[in-house]
C-alpha cells in the first residue's frame, strides 16, 4: 500500500513538473521543473522496483545514474541561462519573454 502511495506521489510530481515546464518561462524554474519530473519518475520507478520479494537493485542503480545525469544537464542548463542573461539581460527564451 505504501508503495502505491509513493508511486502516485511520483506520478503527481511528474504532472507538477510538466505544468511548471509548460507554464513557467523563467529558465531556472524550468530547470527545477525538469528535476521535479525526473525525480517523480524515479520515485515511481523505485516503488515499482520495491514490489518484489527483495528490493531490486537494478532500478536503484539506474536511478543513481539518472540523478547524476540530471545534475550534469542542470549544470549545463544553468550555465546557459547565466550566459543568456549576460548577453541579453533576461533569463527567458527570446520569443517567450513577453508571455505569461
Amino acid at each position, binding site marked *: 500500500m505504501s508503495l502505491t502511495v509513493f508511486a502516485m506521489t511520483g506520478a503527481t510530481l511528474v*504532472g507538477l513538473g510538466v505544468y511548471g515546464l509548460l507554464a513557467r518561462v523563467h529558465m531556472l524554474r524550468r530547470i527545477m521543473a525538469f528535476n521535479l519530473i525526473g525525480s517523480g519518475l524515479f520515485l515511481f520507478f523505485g516503488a515499482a522496483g520495491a514490489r518484489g520479494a527483495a528490493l531490486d537493485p537494478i532500478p536503484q542503480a539506474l536511478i543513481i545514474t539518472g540523478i547524476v545525469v540530471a545534475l550534469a544537464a542542470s549544470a549545463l542548463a544553468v550555465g546557459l541561462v547565466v550566459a543568456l542573461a549576460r548577453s541579453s539581460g533576461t533569463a527567458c527564451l527570446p520569443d517567450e519573454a513577453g508571455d*505569461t
Partner: protein
Amino acid sequence: MSLVLDIALCALILGVGLATVAGHGVFRAVIFFITYGLLLAIGWARLGAYDVALAEAAISAGLTGVLLLAAHGRLRRLSAAEEAPLRRNLPAALIATGVALALGWAWFALPDPAAPDLTAALPQSGVGNPVTAVLLNFRAWDTLLEAIILLAALIGLWMLARDRAWNEPLGLQYHARAGGVMASFGRVLPPIGLIFGVYLVWAGAETTGGAFQGGTVLAAVCLVSLMAGVLPAPRIAQTAWRAALVFGPGVFLLSGVAGAIFAQGFLALPPALAKPAIVTIEAALTLSIAVTLVLLVIGPPDDGGQDA
C-alpha cells in the same frame, strides 16, 4: 502506522513540490526545491533505497541546490532574476493532468514484478552491496558513460566563458573575510568531510555509499575550502586540474580494456580480482567526480563583466 507516516511524508513532498512550481519568486522556489530534495531523500530511505537516498540528498538537493542558488545570485546581479507571475494556463494543466493520470493508470496496470534473478551473479561480482555490483560490474558501461557525461557537461560549461576571461580563475571570485565564519568553517570542515567522503567510497562496496555519493561529499569539502580561500581558485590552464578530471574515467576505461585483453571481455572483472578492481576504480572515479562536480558548481571563468 507506517502507512500514515508515508502518506504524511508524500503529502509534504507534494506540497513542497507544488510550492517549487507555483510559489512566488524564483529564490523561494530554489529554497523549496532544496527542501523538496531532502524530503525526497527521506522517502527513499523509507523505500529502503539508502544508496538512492544518499544520492538524492547529496546531489539533487545539495549540489543542484547550490548550483541554482549561485545562478540566482548571478542572475540578480544581471537583473534577470525577476519573473512574470504565474498565470493560469489551461492547456498546460490539461497536459500535466493527462501525464499524471496516465502514469497512475500504468501503475495499476503493471503485471507482477519481474526482476532479473541476481542470486547467482552477485557472489561473482566481488562486492556485497548489490547496487554497487550493478553500477560497477553488471552495468559498468552505463556508469562509465555517466562519468563521461559529467565531464562533457563541464567542457560544455566552459565553452560558455567569454574569450577574454578564458585565462581567468574559474568562477566568480568569493572573498571570505579573514577570521569570519566562512574562513573558520573552511578550516574545520574539510578534514571531517574528507574522512566521511573516503569512508563512503570504501563502505560503498559492502553497504551504503559509493563513488558518486562519496565524490559529492568530497566536492562539498573542496567547495568550502575554495570559498574560504584555503585552496586557490583553479584555472583551466593548470594541467593538474585537467589531469584530475580525466583520471577516473581514464582508469575505468583502461581497466575495461584490460578486461578485454586479459579476461573474458571489455569491462569484465574476473571474480577473484573483482573486489580490488572495483575499489581501485571507485577511488579513481571518486577523485575525478569530486573535481568535476566542484568545477561544475563554480562555473566557467568569469571576470564579472557584462556583455549587454
